[in-house]
């Protein structure tokens, strides 16, 4: 039986896991109550450190995440984990199997694990994941881990919502250099080469260090650059701009080795994460990133409001349909129609949402 909203919030503030889970669902699906919930939770958001873990399939990310959570718990922290897996483009369904590798903390009351599917969205996913992370933050977890598969635009977006991004690679994950080129260089604050007991592990670490060094040669030592403009994310340009700005407080991504199956290397990894967080604090980058995150959130909400108010409006749609003949004949262009639509929509856009 669905609870009343106030009862849900009361349970949430009382620390009940079932209420947290329902709150996450409301936020994930932008269900009724989403606006109000996020508004209520807003003052509580911002205390948690957010860690992103990404990399190709088979790299052992979930195993690494499990070990990180175990260590964090031993240090007395609480952890919320969001595990993101791809939705099948053909069926719209998804197989979410990351929990299996986190069994050692499955019953720990200080750990919460939520599996999310990408649901075929690109930018939308990162916004949703960030909001779910906000909910976990507000609930009180002091560490939030966001784990995503693959290396692509989606993962880059999600990485931008984390304070520290760890990229986990393995010697066998295909052509490693190609992987490195696919945007990973820009998002990684820390590189981890897992399955260090396999042949090729040392070479991969070397290759990554070399690429970091090469970067140093051509465009300067590239800080893992977060907080860039939503609409113009060009890694190369960003790197060059940073070099030109001669930012003195640069973070050089360390390249670490782990054997997650044996639990080796995790303490060194966590030390690097802690070091990175201190760097973010000291350099002011943390505050900067969080401000960018809030800014992006506003932009997302604006975009969604526009979507809802404009495109759900029957009159707007009818007006646009009526312009199609003019567009076809060439009497109007998409640009003139768009400008006219915006001019007409002023009141609609600023109207109060029901």
């Amino acid at each position, binding site marked *: 039986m669905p609870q009343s909203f106030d009862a849900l919030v009361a349970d949430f503030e009382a620390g009940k896991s079932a209420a947290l889970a329902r709150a996450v669902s409301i936020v994930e699906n932008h269900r009724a109550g989403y606006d109000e919930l996020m508004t209520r939770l807003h003052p509580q958001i911002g205390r948690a450190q957010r860690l992103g873990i990404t990399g190709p399939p088979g790299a052992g990310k979930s195993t690494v995440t499990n070990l990180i959570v175990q260590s964090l718990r031993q240090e007395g922290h609480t952890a919320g984990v969001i595990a993101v897996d791809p939705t099948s483009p053909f069926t719209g*369904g998804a197989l979410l199997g990351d*929990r299996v590798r986190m069994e050692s903390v499955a*019953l720990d009351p200080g750990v919460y694990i939520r599996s999310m599917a990408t649901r075929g969205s690109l930018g939308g996913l990162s916004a949703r994941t960030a909001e779910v992370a906000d909910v976990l933050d507000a609930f009180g977890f002091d560490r939030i881990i966001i784990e995503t598969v693959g290396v692509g635009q989606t993962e880059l977006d999600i990485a931008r919502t984390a304070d520290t991004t760890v990229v986990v690679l393995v010697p066998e994950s295909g052509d490693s250099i190609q992987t490195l080129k696919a945007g990973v260089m820009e998002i990684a604050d820390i590189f981890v080469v897992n399955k260090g007991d396999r042949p090729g592990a040392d070479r991969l670490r070397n290759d990554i260090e070399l690429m970091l060094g090469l970067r140093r040669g051509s465009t300067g030592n590239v800080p893992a650059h977060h907080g860039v403009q939503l609409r113009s994310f060009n890694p190369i340009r960003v790197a060059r701009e940073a070099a030109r700005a001669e930012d003195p407080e640069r973070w050089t991504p360390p390249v670490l080795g782990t054997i997650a199956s044996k639990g080796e290397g995790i303490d060194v990894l966590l030390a690097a994460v802690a070091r990175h967080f201190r760097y973010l604090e000291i350099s002011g980058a943390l505050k900067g990133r969080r401000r960018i995150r809030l800014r992006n959130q506003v932009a997302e909400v604006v975009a969604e409001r526009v979507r809802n108010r404009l495109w759900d409006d029957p009159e707007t749609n009818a007006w646009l349909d009526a312009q199609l003949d003019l567009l076809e004949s060439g009497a109007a262009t998409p640009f003139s129609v768009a400008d006219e639509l915006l001019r007409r929509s002023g009141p609609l856009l600023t109207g109060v949402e029901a």
Partner: protein
Amino acid sequence: MRPIRVLVAKPGLDGHDRGAKVVAAALRDAGMEVIYTGLHQTPEMIATAAIQEDVDVVGLSILSGAHMTLIPRVLELLRADGREDILVTGGGIIPREDMDALEARGTGRLFGPGTPTSELVDYIHDWFEARESQTA
């Protein structure tokens, strides 16, 4: 319409997961989000996962004969956390009279060996649509 979220779980010590994996794949192919727990789950682990993931359905696969202990325990734990609205279904090696007993105790329909996966998919879809139209 958001995807239906299903937890597919193997309670107890039974390690035969061919059926559970076939079901998980079929549900995914039917557009559902399936959280697969892996083997050797205790009722506590299953209930915790179901609650954290806020699933609509829990599907249990048991071939070891321990269903009369393990399934009621899952029901109890979900109820204790206020989530008796989650549909508990499943199948495996469960004689008809035990299925009747379990259904009387609060599970949904249970399915025997040889049931086509399409039947399970339809059952879950129908249940979900009925629930959504109630709360709409």
